[in-house]
């Protein structure tokens, strides 16, 4: 995807060109927001809001300063952290609306699917118990679209600090998964 070309087309009035950005980043965004411990409804709302904010602030994106993915995930992260803070200990974060669907292997046997669902649920519960800052660095680290330098830019710290925080977050998550 040539982001410069897409931006030129949008500047020229071709709104539909933005659809290419949406299609390219929707899956990574869902993965990121899911790993932030958000429920399906929250993930959809925040993903939509991320694209809307990106559209409305497209003029502020500077290709010389950062990659488009870095800029987009900075928006998503901020929205996700706001949502986590707003939700706090609200009952909705522990509701039963997060039905386990979208398993990675659609052809899995029912028993395998059940086991997969259990693992998803255990992971999700553990993620929700992690501090928001740990979730953020962890969720970013599992994105193939960005590297450690990008994570450092998004988190506003050094690469060294990202490594330290990531190590700590993985340890905490491991402990939560064991309990």
């Amino acid at each position, binding site marked *: 995807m040539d982001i410069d070309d897409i931006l030129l087309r*949008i*500047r020229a*009035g071709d*709104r*539909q060109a*933005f*659809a290419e950005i*949406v*299609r390219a980043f*929707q*899956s990574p*965004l*869902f*993965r*990121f*927001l*899911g*790993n932030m411990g958000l429920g*399906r409804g929250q*993930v*959809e709302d925040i*993903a*939509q809001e991320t*694209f*809307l904010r990106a*559209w*409305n*602030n*497209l*003029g502020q994106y500077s290709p010389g300063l950062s990659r488009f993915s870095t800029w987009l995930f900075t928006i998503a992260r901020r929205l996700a952290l706001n949502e986590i803070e707003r939700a706090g200990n609200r009952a909705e974060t522990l509701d039963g609306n997060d039905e*386990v669907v*979208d398993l*990675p292997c659609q052809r899995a046997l029912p028993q395998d699917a059940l086991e997969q669902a259990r*693992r*998803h649920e*255990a*992971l*999700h519960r553990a993620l929700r118990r992690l501090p928001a800052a740990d979730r953020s660095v*962890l969720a970013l680290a*599992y994105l*193939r679209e960005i590297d450690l330098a990008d994570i450092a830019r998004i988190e506003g710290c050094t690469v060294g600090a990202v490594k330290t925080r990531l190590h700590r977050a*993985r*340890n905490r*998550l*491991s*402990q939560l*998964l*064991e309990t």
Partner: protein
Amino acid sequence: MMIEHYEDLLQAGRYAPPADFSDRVMARIMDQPEPSFAAPPRTSRPQAQWLALAAASLLGAIQLATFIFGVWITASAS
């Protein structure tokens, strides 16, 4: 570490976007105002600078010629 047993899930993510997600986003984008881009750099500016330099050089040359002419007139009168 326990997390290693969950690497595949973390990499795959829990949710996938619904099939109509991009259509829904684009429907909302269509209702939004055009994003405001910063004005592109004005290409006429360097040309204006060159023009001002040429005009100033011409003015300087005229002043120099006038001075030399004045000196010549004074010298020939005496």
